[in-house]
């Protein structure tokens, strides 16, 4: 499985070359920091650690300083996000009707914990306090689509492509 960037190039393969290419177009002043972070994020979809290190080196800043700026602005993502966002509800209603079991099943199917992204960058998993569809509990969403009255079997079906992909 090849992991690709938003521009369709493989990410981890030549991250260094791509960074060099980006850096070569900037001044070494601190004013370049935010534009650089933006361009790197645009290229990779997030800010890989080695990119922040490279930017720090280039601008003669410490890695922590670059990290502080990256975490200060909401626009920057420090972890890769998948193409699709899965949210499993942990509200009271869902909880009473077995929401925890659903979450466990989804975790098993995707092989990740909440807050993480599958290795192939297909899915990012999150939990939410309540999605406001308590009548349908237990519930789950994938992007804009809501799934109600979930069962473990249903969850397995929804992510069947994922288990094959792995």
């Amino acid at each position, binding site marked *: 499985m090849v992991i690709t960037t938003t521009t369709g190039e493989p990410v981890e393969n030549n991250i260094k070359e791509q960074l060099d290419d980006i850096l070569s177009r900037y001044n070494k002043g601190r004013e370049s920091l935010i534009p650089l972070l933006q361009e790197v994020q645009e290229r990779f979809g997030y800010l890989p*650690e080695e990119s*922040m*290190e490279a930017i720090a*080196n280039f601008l*003669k*800043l*410490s*890695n*922590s*300083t*670059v*990290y*502080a700026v990256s*975490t*200060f*602005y*909401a626009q920057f993502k420090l972890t890769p996000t998948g193409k699709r966002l899965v949210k499993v509800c942990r509200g009271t209603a869902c909880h009473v009707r077995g929401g925890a079991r659903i979450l466990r099943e989804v975790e098993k199917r995707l092989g990740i914990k909440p807050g993480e992204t599958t290795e192939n960058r297909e899915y990012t998993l999150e939990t939410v306090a309540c999605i406001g569809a308590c009548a349908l509990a237990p519930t789950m969403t994938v992007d804009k689509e809501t799934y109600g009255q979930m069962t473990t079997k249903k969850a397995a079906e929804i992510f069947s492509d994922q288990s094959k992909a792995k």
Partner: protein
Amino acid sequence: MKIIRLTINGQGVEARQGMTVLEAAQEAGIYIPALCSDPDLEPYGGCRLCVVEVEKMRGQPTACTTLATDGMVVHTETPEVNRIRRNTVELLIADHPMDCLTCIKNQRCELQKVAAYLSISERRFPRTDRSLPIDNSNPFFTLDRNYCILCAKCVRACDEITVVNAIEIVDRGYESRVSTFGDKPLFESICQSCGECVVRCPVAALVAKDAIQPMREVETICPYCGVGCGMYLGIRDGRIVSVRGSRENQASNGRLCVKGRYGIAEFIHHPERLSAPLIRRNGKLTETSWDEALGLVASRLASYSKDQVAVISSAKCTNEENYIIQKFTRAVLGTNNIDHCARLCHAPSVAGLAQSFGSGAMTNSNSDIGDAACILAIGTNTTETHPVIGFNVKKATRKGTRLIVANPRQIGLVRFADVWLRQRPGTDVALLMGIAKVIVDEGLHDSSFISERCENFDAFKESLKGFDLSLVEKITGVPQNQIAEAARLYATNRPGAILYSMGITQHSHGTDNVIAIANLAMLTGNIGKPGSGVNPLRGQNNVQGACDMGALPNVYSGYQPVSDPKVKEKFESAWGSTLSPTAGLTISEIFDAAYQGKLKALYLVGENPLLSEPDASHVREALSRLDFFVAQDIFLSESAELAHVVLPGTTFAEKEGTFTNTERRVQRVRKVIEPLGNSRADWLITCQIAQLMGGKDFDFEHPSQIMDEIAQLTPSYGGISFERLETGGLQWPCPTKEHPGTPILHTTKFTRGKGKFIPLEYKPSVELPDDEYPLVLTTGRSIFQYHTGTMSRKVKGLNIFKNEEQVELNPEDARKLGIADDDTIKVISRRGEVTAKARVTEASPAGVVFMTFHFAESPTNLLTNPAVDPIAKIPELKVCAVRVEKIVQPS
């Protein structure tokens, strides 16, 4: 400075121009609550507790960011001001743990103090519970974010004082926290563990792990390096329990590095400290009485002829001790066979600068490095070896100082450099002459300085012809345009300071390297002004002093030659004995003579030549061939293990005396605790041996009396006395009681009159790589260890950072050899082989491997080349040819 007058709470207050309202109030004894201000940090205005009201100003400005002005009328206690403060503190404590009684900061907490001042007695806001991860990874301190009030003092200290920037306030809003790159544990971050953040934290968020409150404190000097930082050692129940930087100290202004702050108490109170004299009985070192040990030493030393004995003194010992040891060697043993480890570090500085300027010491001061418009740091890994001077250099670059780093390795300073010249090890003469050539060719030299203050310029200029830039590029591997850029930077940004260290001196042409630096400084008129100069950074705490005191084979104290009849006469009449006019043996010659059986007896004080000398197997053999070998030390070092008699000396904390730091500042070392066990101060031991051997005038009762004798016989120390040093250090030359000391040398004329340009030729290192030994080994040091590790390796926390040798090699070489990180490898030279772990890093250039010499398990100096500089006799520790092999471990 202009004095201004203002009124605070109806009271007339005087302040100096530039002071803030907060500072003015504090100086007048008026308390204003403040949680984010610090005298060493820029005003921040973050906590908003120091709000005041100023007549004719709107609102409530923060006193820490408001400049005091003439006629200002300030009120610090209005109801509105106190309402704001109370509100602020109530918000701060809303999510503060409030377990004050059991908190390590109880009674010393600034938040507690402020809350008490504002009479806050209950939580008004509901407690917001949060439990943040505690970072326990650093061996010396803990970061518990649950206590943090986000005053950012730690972050600002790491930014403004140390310029490491290991910690920052990351994230935003309610999630804001003090953290490192990637929220990694501090231990895995770039933190250097200096603790400058810890000492400033107002609450219990950053606290030292072994924080014990001292009963009393004594001011003294750090024993770990030549920066000579001032420190207060805290004592409780006969033990050293705390260390605090001394802000009054002019060498360091209160700064300390990891070794000084956290590496002291543990080695002093270490169970392995020698506590009784030992003598060898039936091949085994056994405890004995002082009387027996001293009696034996005296009678055995007396049994040899003058040229059969030698003494090696110690750059860790005080000035008084070094003076006594050389006096004993010369007046009692009757020989000039005395030397110390300066031979291995800065002998070329002493020899080279004496030729060029007339005196061989750092020309300027630690504090004026910040005044330089350009700094050339060549052959010095300043941030590792002289950390507090490293702070100054980095800080200077923040304020616009241009920095040129010349170093084969990618050292910490490279991140701050405008230009990084990556010369091949051992090619510095070519590089420096190349730079000089550009300066002369482009007319950037200081002609009036050269004609008024210097001589022999024409011959020097002629010798530059041999250094065509294309040739220099070929020799050094540095591209021509970089050489030219560095030359222009250094010549046009004046004043320019040159800093250097062992990367320059430890070569078979070390003296030439030093002269090349002196030439360059004279060429640009960079001598005798603040922020300029030639600044050899001395390694050990008192290596400058040991040289000054004449623990050298050719000079008495103050560099007075033993061969000068007038000098000889002076010392003969002062000491009442006949002295030898011929120079004695240097360290390497001492070991050669012992090896050949010509030298029979050695008195070794506070040194560990088995690890510090080149070609260690030769040294071991030499030591074991000695007929009588007495070692005086605080631990049974690898060398002392071979001795016939071992005498337990004391650490710096158990005796009175002085150290002279790298900037020639003589500073007072004070007795903090009594000598441990049955150990004795080193000066006393030597005096007692001398007296047993019939030496006259060794009946000193206190080191201050020794200093009085030094002052009498040493012109540059003539005005120095313990009494004067009570109020602060003095920089030599300080010839009279009234003289204020000399922060900058050669201001109006050179010590030798005119500065002498000396033409140079490039000489390659003695041992160059070849087919059999294709790599260059260069050596250096780590911030977390000191010298041969006798002291620093006794400190557990320092060992956690670095406790084994790591051979650094370039990825390219590693790939060719099939070596990966942490592989066990063998480094082999013509003299021996050493096993250690590999560390693959771009910091090492291709073709070069790097090792330190701190670790007895991987004795790097088995490999190094004893070839010496013909003048300074320093061995070529920085360049030798090696081969590296991977050890295939049986799986």
